[in-house]
């Protein structure tokens, strides 16, 4: 974590950019970066199911504040434009974002970030809830991420009955292909993923000798980072963020 002192110059640029995603589509993305020549580590933030919403934009800026080139792709782009919750509702009613689409948008984001002269060429992927699952999937199916963060990603383990044409494979099946170290943050009171599912995931990671770090927080459920939701847990969230930035610094390097 970049130590801040009151005599420091600080600046940030945050704006909408266009990137190439799934199927060669040009989609919009929210890009925040520290000012300065870098080189900076980078993070892709895949937005969660409530949409490409204010929390994700704030979190994108939070990463930039901590010295990262941070890019959040609008994985809901194909569902049209409107308020984030309306667009997310349309996606939900249509069966959600297909796994291939989310992973390819993450790949486009990775390519965008690595191509920047400001980049130190190390890129992580971050997601929460449904996008925690997509972050895990992207870290398994793509070669190129240097670290992955799955915050309480639901349905990493799917039963056969849960599989759909747009989500044809249970992500856990890809564990053997996990390309980079994985950080997992979970709550003991979460129902999806529940502690048993997290344990199964951990067993699979051990089986394939993967580098991972899991934190299971007591007295926390699903989405304990979301300060605007009833599940917010202050103590666990503060510790979670601390573990997250320590993990990323270890695998992505520090800012100059």
């Amino acid at each position, binding site marked *: 974590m970049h130590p801040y002192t009151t005599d420091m110059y600080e600046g940030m640029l945050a704006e909408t950019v266009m990137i190439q995603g799934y199927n060669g589509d040009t989609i919009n993305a929210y890009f925040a970066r520290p000012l300065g020549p870098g080189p900076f580590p980078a993070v892709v933030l895949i937005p969660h*199911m*409530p*949409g490409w919403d204010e929390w994700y934009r704030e979190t994108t800026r939070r990463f930039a504040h901590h010295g990262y080139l941070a890019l959040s792709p609008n994985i809901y782009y194909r*569902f*049209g*434009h*409107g*308020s984030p*919750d*309306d*667009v*997310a*509702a*349309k*996606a*939900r*009613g249509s*069966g*959600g974002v297909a796994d291939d689409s989310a992973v390819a948008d993450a790949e486009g984001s990775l390519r965008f970030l690595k191509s920047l002269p400001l980049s130190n060429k190390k890129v992580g992927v971050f997601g929460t*809830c*449904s996008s925690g699952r997509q972050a895990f999937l992207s870290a398994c199916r793509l070669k190129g991420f240097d670290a992955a963060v799955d915050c309480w990603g*639901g*349905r990493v383990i799917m039963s056969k009955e*849960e599989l*759909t044409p747009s989500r044809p494979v249970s992500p856990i099946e890809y564990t053997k292909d996990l390309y980079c170290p994985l950080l997992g943050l979970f709550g003991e009171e979460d*129902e*999806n993923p529940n502690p048993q599912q997290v344990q199964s995931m951990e067993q699979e990671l051990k089986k394939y000798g993967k580098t991972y770090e899991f934190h299971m927080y007591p007295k926390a*459920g*699903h*989405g304990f980072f979301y300060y605007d*939701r*009833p*599940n917010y847990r202050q103590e666990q969230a503060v510790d979670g963020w601390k573990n997250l930035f320590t993990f990323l610094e270890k695998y992505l390097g520090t800012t100059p």
Partner: protein
Amino acid sequence: MCTGIVETAEVSGSGKGPRGWFKLEQVNVSYDHPSDAPLEHALNIDFVNQKEGPSARVAVELSPGSARKLAQAILTALSQVGNSS
């Protein structure tokens, strides 16, 4: 979409959204994280018209108990008027 619980049905009627009344063509019923209701999961109902874009939506997010009451109230009301569609 953490739970993946979504049911859809074609409907006809009208809904009032932020831009006024519009024709309804579909209802999506899900049990998932709500956007506003202070619950981890809610029974979410979206009355939509896909042709008019994402904003053509009338949304409610209900606790499961409230949703059951709503379903019962609808069925009770309809039982008093016979089987008209």
